[in-house]
């Protein structure tokens, strides 16, 4: 009896919140739940729709068409000789993932408040769930990317080896921002209203519709601090070949790591009072 007693999990609850990053031990214990939460999000997203997962293709496809007409044909932006459809597609696919998962992660606590007040599990699973669940949409929409690249006969270069790292960075950005905003949104619903503008602001501030090289030399450093710039420029260089502009990629990556770490700490500091401030 005493042997079994010693290996029992001891939990101590007090009014103090810690400064730790994650409780990895606990996350491991709840990995099955995490799996089912992600799986639920995926299953439920297109429930009772006729087109189902086709929506994952349709949404970015419509955006690509609109942007190509407005910015490629009408505004005639400079893309350095790359056809505009190709130029924007390589950016819009990762961008759609980032904006979708960021929005969902930020709203995750507020939309899950029913669960929040009734049961305990690591709160960080709320914002992390959409980060993984939206990868399904992303993977499906990659088929557009492949199609467009095939159509324009892009020859892959060695730059492609960067893709796994870039996908990680693409997930890191919304995770960090999502943890920050989710923790803030549950206390201040202002976040919900600000979110719409933020997404709009980001799409114009990141080089999705235009090329980062259009930014004046003296502003480039500040511009490169935007972590979305790093991801988009990275994807473009990796998929279309050409020089990898580290000056745009490295600062943004550092910033995204910073946002991720600070977001994790802030989330953990606040997670215990979420229920009291809903």
């Amino acid at each position, binding site marked *: 009896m005493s042997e079994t007693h010693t290996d*029992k999990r001891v939990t101590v609850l*007090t009014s103090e919140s810690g400064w730790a990053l994650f409780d990895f031990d606990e996350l491991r214990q709840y990995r099955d739940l995490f799996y089912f939460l992600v799986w*639920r999000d995926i299953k439920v997203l297109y429930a009772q729709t006729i087109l189902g997962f086709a929506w994952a293709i349709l949404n970015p496809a419509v955006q690509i068409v609109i942007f190509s007409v407005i910015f490629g044909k009408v505004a005639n932006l400079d893309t350095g000789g790359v056809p505009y459809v190709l130029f924007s597609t390589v950016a819009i696919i990762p961008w759609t993932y980032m904006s979708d998962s960021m929005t969902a992660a930020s709203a995750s606590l507020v939309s899950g408040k029913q669960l929040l007040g009734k049961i305990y599990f690591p709160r960080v699973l709320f914002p992390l769930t959409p980060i993984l669940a939206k990868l399904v949409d992303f993977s499906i929409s990659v088929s557009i990317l492949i199609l467009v690249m095939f159509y324009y006969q892009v020859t892959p270069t060695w730059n492609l080896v960067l893709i796994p790292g870039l996908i990680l960075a693409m997930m890191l950005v919304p995770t960090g921002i999502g943890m920050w905003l989710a923790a803030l949104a549950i206390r201040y619903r202002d976040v919900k209203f600000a979110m719409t503008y933020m997404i709009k602001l980001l799409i114009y501030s990141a080089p999705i519709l235009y090329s980062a090289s259009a930014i004046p030399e003296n502003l480039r450093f500040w511009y490169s601090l935007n972590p979305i710039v790093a991801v988009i420029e990275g994807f473009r260089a990796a998929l279309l070949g050409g020089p990898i502009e580290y000056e745009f990629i490295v600062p943004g990556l550092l910033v995204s790591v910073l946002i991720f770490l600070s977001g994790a700490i802030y989330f953990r500091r606040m997670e215990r009072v979420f229920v009291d401030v809903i």
Partner: protein
Amino acid sequence: MADPAISVEGVSKIYRIGLRDQVNDSIGRSLLQFVKSPLSNYRKYRSLYKFSDEVLSGADAGDDILWALRDVSFDVQQGEVVGIIGVNGAGKSTLLKVISRITPPTKGKITIRGRVSSLLEVGTGFHPELTGRENVYLNGTILGMRKLEVDRKFDEIIEFSGVEKFLDTPVKRYSMGMRVRLAFAVAAHLEPEILIIDEVLAVGDAEFQKKCLNKMEDVGQEGRTVLFVSHNMAAVTRLCNRGILLSAGSILEDGNTHAIVSSYLTSGLGTTAARDWSASEAPGDDSVRLRALRVVDQQGSVSEGVDIRKKVGLQMEFDVLEPGHILLPYFRLTNEEGVSIFSTIDQDLQWHSKTREPGRYVSTAWVPENLLSEGMIYVQAAMRTEHRKYRPFQEADAIAFNVIDTMEGGSARGEWVGKLLGAVRPKLDWTTDYSAEVDTPGG
């Protein structure tokens, strides 16, 4: 002795409750407030979980401070089944929420040894779009099971729930009863070392409830530690070997379940089912004085919780000091929403149109079984007379009692387990005419 499974040391939980906003009488002031509002809103939201030292020490007892729990300490040994009882607002649910890590204590410390599953609601996390099968897995893992565990118990869970046929139907097409069955079946197969349960037995039909109670009894006998909150005193006495009585956030009594339950039922905590007045304090005037009010059961003993299927007596004890008045004892019943259910006035023919001699009188009005709805009933007591304007006394919300449907059948619920609206709940005679012939549309 081994370390306790749960050890609660000096735990307090403070909430800040909303105060009425200041009302401005000038446009200028309103404008000023509008400009300042982001700052004051920020402070307001921050103050929801930050409390100054004055508040924590109890020196500042502002109107907006609510001590949901105040300095609660107790240990639960491994294998004990503890029932927590108390009136609404006594802090039972808050205590369970703090122990299940949903909300942190404002002060104090809780040490838990073992794996905890808490069941504060049946069907937490059920998703209407998912099928029954999928929800079993989702709900099971939410409650703390591993996937392997759910795999292993899946057949047992399904059999217990009795919804085999609908396993692959989305839960949104389930009836309320089916949903509850499935959800409880999952919960009943949890095997944590420590189980925390809040009032979940109050759902389901009678047969299913019996099944759940039996299952819970097994759980208790397997040596698991259980914390159990319920208003169902029968269930508490049956399942628990120890009771903790909470009142206004503090522990009032802690000990043997039978003793705790009976002291809870007779004390008439919070809402009183009985009140006495001394001769000097008694409401009334020189001719009549109110001495006592009681809610009694058929045996005549005071009871706060009333079975919906039993008669309940409203008793008024009064002294007549001056002869010559025709007196009409009167009660008015109001429910939790403030709706007047009915008024009743003395019907005793023996005293019809008769003046009363000085002395002590006890009048009892019997409310029939299966008339009142579930919930708190507040009773106003008054004395009326032959003169419309002369009322020697009138006591609003003087006593109260709780009407309980134990779901054992025999109430107006029939087989329905969901909400049943209405200020009264009479059990009516229903008849059905049946014929096998059906008019087919268009035919």
